[in-house]
């Protein structure tokens, strides 16, 4: 029997818009098993990315509860959430979100430094090498291609060996060849580290590579 690592119960999200409150998500209940991979798909505006942000504690649900590794995210304040993410969650974004003023190596080492790990740089170097960028450690993001930047972002996400890997359309800004390479890398890393992967994607063929596909429509599970 596999353990549930991520559990959402009747989750809803309402945000304030210019024209009044906008209901982004409603009545989402979902359990994700440890070590599995889940593809979140659906049309634009269906709430995929918002759901991913709720799972990462980067956004707060306005209704329902979210349990990750047995912890209720709704009961935590901003700092508790930040501490909780340390070493437990890795997040990859469509726009990479690397710190432009830091080198690739520093970017990868940053989460380990935040955790207070003494060997942050040695581990970061190894992780960069694992994504094929061992020779680019001292380059700044602006000196790298989009594909390379996303590989750095992947290395940064997995360097702490997180139990949960959240990826928000990680190939959205890349061409087909780079996109495919990144996905291979992502699934490879997930498999190697035994992490649970939640992947937001538009592409059915990428979703199909996941153990399970969850479809969203108009902010609800389809």
């Amino acid at each position, binding site marked *: 029997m596999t353990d549930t690592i991520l559990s959402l119960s009747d989750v809803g999200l309402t945000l304030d818009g210019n024209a009044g409150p906008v209901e982004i998500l409603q009545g989402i209940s979902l359990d994700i098993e440890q070590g599995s991979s889940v593809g979140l798909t659906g049309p634009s505006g269906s709430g995929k*990315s*918002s759901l991913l*942000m709720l799972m*990462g504690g*980067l*956004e*707060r649900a306005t209704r329902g509860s979210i349990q990750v590794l047995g912890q209720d995210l709704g009961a935590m304040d*901003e*700092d508790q*959430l*930040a*501490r909780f*993410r*340390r*070493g437990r969650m890795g*997040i990859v*974004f*469509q*726009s990479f*979100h690397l*710190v*432009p*003023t*830091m080198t690739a190596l*520093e970017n990868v*080492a*940053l*989460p380990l*430094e*935040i*955790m*207070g790990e*003494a060997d*942050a*740089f040695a581990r970061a170097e190894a992780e960069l090498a694992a994504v094929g960028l061992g020779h680019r450690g001292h380059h700044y993001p*602006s000196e790298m291609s989009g594909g390379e930047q996303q590989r750095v972002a992947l290395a*940064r996400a997995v360097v702490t060996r997180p139990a949960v890997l959240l990826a*928000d359309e990680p190939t959205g800004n890349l061409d087909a060849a780079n996109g495919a390479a990144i996905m291979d890398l992502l699934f490879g890393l997930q498999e190697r580290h035994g992490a649970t992967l939640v992947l937001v994607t538009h592409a059915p063929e990428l979703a199909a590579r996941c153990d399970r596909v969850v479809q969203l429509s108009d902010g609800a599970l389809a």
Partner: protein
Amino acid sequence: MMLSARIAARELRGGIRGFRVFLLCLMLGVAAIASVGLVRGAIREALSDQGAMLLGGDAQYDFTYRRATPEERAWIDDHAAAVSEVIEFRSMLTRGAGDALETALTQVKAVDGAHPLIGALVLDPPVPMGALGPEGGLPGIFLDQILADRLGLAPGDTVQLAGQPFAYRAAITREPDSTGAGIGLGPRSIVALSAIEATPILAPGSLYETEYRVILPEGTDLDAAKTAAEARFEGAGMRWSDSRRAAPGADRFVDRLGSFLVLVGLAGLAVGGVGISATVSAWIERKAETVATLRALGAAGGTIRAIFLWQLAALSALGIVAGLGLAALVVVLAAGVIEAALPIPVTIALSAGPMLEAAVYGALVAAIFALWPLARMATTRSGALYRAGRGRRWPSWPALVLMAVLVAVLLAAAVAFSGLVGLTLGTFGGVVGALVLLWLAAFGLRLLARRAAHLSRGRPALRAALAAIGAPRSEAAPVILSLGLGLSVLAAVGQVDAALRSAIQRDLPDVAPAYFMIDIQNSQLPEFLTTLDTLGTVDKVETAPMLRGVITEINGQPAREVAGEHWVLRGDRGVTYATTPREALTAGTFWPEDYAGPPQASFAAKEAQELGLKLGDKITVNILGRDIEAAITSLRDVDFSTAGIGFVLTLNPAALQGAPHVHIATIYAAPEDEAAILRRVAQEYPNVTAIRVRDAIARVSEALGTIARATSLAAGVTLLTGFVVLIGAAAAGEGARNWEAAMLKTLGATRATILRSFALRAALMGAAAGLVAIGFGALAGYAVLEWVMEAQYRFAPLPALAIVLGGVLVTLTAGLVFALRPLAARPARILRARE
């Protein structure tokens, strides 16, 4: 209407959002300059309008050390509608006797019955001028309230002036002919001329000045009157002044201080320029797509530039007008306080001149600093404008030339407005030097931040702070530049002020005499020295014969034409004679003790060098109306900083044979013995005037304090402008901080870590600005102390520490105010906004 103007007008419909820093910077800079200018203008106007009142007549004939002969007086009477004679000297007021003897140094004015020719003396109680006449057997005396209080006098009490009894009749509330500028050594007393004519005060050789103030006949041309007077009194040691420049000392002081403060205000405007440049850069960044679209639609580069220039011109005009309005408001509101603080009646009102000056400075600074980003935009290609991170390009050559021309025009305007080339160029150079130094410091800090990144391993807050400082689009340059300049001016003021005070306090007590005594008659000298000797508390006495003379010619040419406005040539100077040199000779040989040949002079070496004098040169000195031509045969190393006896000019005794003179003495004693010495001298030698060196130094310190306060106030405006720029920079960087905070939270950083990182970068930049300011302050302190004051500079750590702490505090405040929103924001929204 031109196309560019029409489009510019449409663009401006959006309001001034995004231009608040631009407008505030310009407004504050213009307001500071206009306020100082308005006050300076009002004082200048008062000095010029009330010239006759301040001088006490249309013109004045001034004789040092003597009164006019009957023939001279007759000539003066013939050329005037009214004449008033006034004799000014320093003396001692005493009250009581024995151990209860109270003394006070005073500047005495002995006036005739015609005084004052213009205006009226305001007295308390309001007695008539006739109250100076004898009444109840005693002549009257009017005293400054301070003197009456110090001696505990009430109207009707008796007080001794130079040993002569006077009845105190009233306190002087306001004198019509007093500028009060400069450093007087004692408060004022007024007596009748007739009351001192028979006393030893006017004995030959005594130090006094006689002024004949005149009302000229209707229609007299001042230039013609001056020429006639100078011709009549040629070689007689007469100095002419007239109502056109009644108080040259005050005039010069107001001019210099006012101009300096305007230049400090200009420094503030330069700081504002950093904000202006940053605002315009951000604005152009926001408008990049509009520009690209306009270009794509076929608009020529000239049209696009014109659109921006129209908008900038409109905004500059708004900022300048707001600044002038603020200045008007401040000056009108503070007019009462300022007028009350000034020693002459001044009416502070709004006038066009200073406003125009401030507006010109504002327009030029806005143009110079706005042109830089505008010119860079002009060299960016259309396609690049659509892309983020457009890269940095240098402005084109013509744009750089235009900016250089504008800087030259600004400099020329500053010189023209102040009329003081040296001061303006010096201050301008200082400001530019400080800006370059600050820019280098910002560059250095960024370099250091990048290099020191490895030191921050394991310290994510420090790593993020160093990364932000070292980044290509770092805030370091605008923050350090804007804050550093204001801090530099404050640090310079602090260092100079502290160093001067400590130089005075540190150096003088060891070497300075306790008293400086003047007016010791020839016949009194031996007895005077014996008295001091018998006291047993006097460590050392030095005396020297003292005459006063004006150096009129150098090698047969008018001295001022040869050597300019050197202080040695300004008015009369002390002259002495000696058989042996008092100081070490640096060149030439001193005359033999029995020398009786043609007059010879020994000159102070440093002053001789400044005047261009060398051995063998001939100088003409007018002493008591007699011209003495002497050859310079030796140069001496005179140190004026010891406050001991030191004469620029020493003549051989025979050259001054027969000239009546007095002696001066410096008395060295322990502070606790000073009072007893003064009492004894005042009792036994009432005609001798004692100047307490510590009091004189206190007056100098007081004057220094006032100048330091005025400069600090002007520097405060610069600092305020810097703060506005900082706030602007912090506000502009809020978006970047939002993202950074969100990113760091995603990676597990707590708000405390993020806040620490923001605080660290602000503190590092503030400290850098503070350190540069200290360096600049120390440099200014060293320059002023070593070169201008010729004293030893010693670094003052306390004001320096205050500057660094101030810098850190200001940047922290500005940085942290804009850190609150990023800290509170939900990461998801910030990150997704960038997707």
